[in-house]
């Protein structure tokens, strides 16, 4: 019996012979009742096509009995098969009845079972042949170092004339200090700027000049004027402190006059002269 294992080592049988030739069973090894039947059939050592189904049924039932004695738990389908085989066996023993109301005869049932065993056997043989084929990367090998296909990037550019012109305009305007990129300035004349301006004008202003006439041209209206006046006054005060200019005011809120600090102090009467 152990030779089954050799015949079919892929499907290692767990049916082993013990000392008194009874079947020692572990059910785990079988792939269901048909597999068990096939194993038993092989043990008969005859062509499955000619196998005695009666004998096979008896062996199966014996197997189930042994399993019960050994308290082995059998899956339900083994028991279903056992019941069916017991039924088949009884019908095979009984004298052949006439086939009635379409029910298959015992012989037909036996033939069908034999056929199923043959088919299972054949499929197993086929699977062994299939698995025995030369397998890729086990028996035969493809190119070990395939050469990669080089992907050439066909580059196209989305840039349009619009992009080109926009780039040109912005680039050039920026370079020329154009307005496009000039940050929005608050309408405030910086004191430093006012002072710088005053310093530049000192040589040019003739004698006393009203401060308001010295405001930058573009700062002469609205909010900008107020800022310009304030900044210019503060710048003038700073410069007066440094002795760079002289300042004069006749009365509160009156016009303030400015002149170069290098000049000699005037006579008092001159002070009001420009406003007079």
């Amino acid at each position, binding site marked *: 019996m152990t030779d089954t294992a050799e015949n079919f080592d*892929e*499907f290692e049988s767990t049916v082993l012979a013990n000392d008194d030739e009874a079947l020692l069973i572990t059910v785990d090894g079988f*792939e*269901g*009742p*048909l*597999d068990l*039947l096939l194993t038993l059939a092989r043990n008969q050592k005859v062509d499955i096509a000619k196998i005695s189904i009666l004998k096979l049924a008896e062996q199966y039932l014996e197997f189930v009995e042994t399993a019960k004695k050994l308290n082995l738990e059998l899956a339900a*389908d083994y028991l279903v098969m056992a019941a069916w085989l017991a039924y088949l066996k009884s019908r095979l023993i009984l004298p052949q009845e006439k086939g009635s109301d379409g029910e298959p005869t015992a012989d037909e049932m036996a033939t069908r079972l034999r*056929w*199923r065993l*043959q*088919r*299972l056997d*054949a*499929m*197993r*043989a*086929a*699977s062994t*042949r*299939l*698995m025995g*084929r*030369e*397998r*890729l*990367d*086990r*028996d*035969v*090998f*493809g*190119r070990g170092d*395939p*050469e990669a*296909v080089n992907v050439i990037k066909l580059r196209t550019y989305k840039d349009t004339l619009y992009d080109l012109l926009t780039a040109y305009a912005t680039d050039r305007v920026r370079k020329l200090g154009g307005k496009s990129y000039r940050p929005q300035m608050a309408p405030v004349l910086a004191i430093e700027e006012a002072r710088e301006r005053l310093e530049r004008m000192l040589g040019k202003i003739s004698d006393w000049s009203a401060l308001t006439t010295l405001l930058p041209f573009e700062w002469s209206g609205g909010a900008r004027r107020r800022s310009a006046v304030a900044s210019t006054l503060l710048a003038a005060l700073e410069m007066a402190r440094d002795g760079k200019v002289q300042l004069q005011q006749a009365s509160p809120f009156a016009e303030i006059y400015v002149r170069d600090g290098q000049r000699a102090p005037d006579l008092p009467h001159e002070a009001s002269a420009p406003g007079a």
Partner: protein
Amino acid sequence: MSSVAKMIETIEDQMEAQSPEANPEHLRMVEALLFAASEPLDVKALSTSLPEGADVPGLLQTLEEIYETRGVNLCCVAGKYQFRTASDLAFLLRKEQPEQKRLSKAAIETLAIIAYHQPVTRAEIEDIRGVAMSKGTIDILMEIGWIKIRGRKRTPGRPVTYGTTEPFLVQFGLESVAHLPGLDELKAAGFLEAIPPSGFDVPNPSDELAADEDPYDPNEPEMATGSVNLDEA
């Protein structure tokens, strides 16, 4: 004359006899493309790379003959072409490859049944094996990529049908499922007959949709496969 020269002469004779017009430049191109590729290439893929009008099938045949006796052979797998080392040299190259997952007996049997009986339903596989299939068996085969769901059977319950894939053919070096080993014998013995056997139709395993098979639509609401009978429901 040396034996190598004799070998070459034989090749030459074959080429003269069968492909007198094989363009040597085109031959070089097909050779280069197939050598460089890691995957099998089909006639169409080769044609797109070759000059217009190149006789790709003829070139392939010539190459197959040139390489027939060499250490590397041109093989047709899954209808595509690939250079592979000659199988008799397996002993030189065989790699001790720890098979990631040794397939269970059930999985091997199921794979063979699917290959030979495709398109086949789960219930039919179970009928052949005489045992209910554990869920994992199909999953493992699907995961390896050797089987796929290919359609639905036009029977009550519309069970899905399984078939083998291109990677299966590539792995086992088969040109197509019609080239499965022993297929003719199994067919002749009637073991591939419809299940249960009607005694009339003898289906071949085929990649084509069977007469009673619909293409698989993954969006179709899933039903319990197997024995659910809509008429009874």
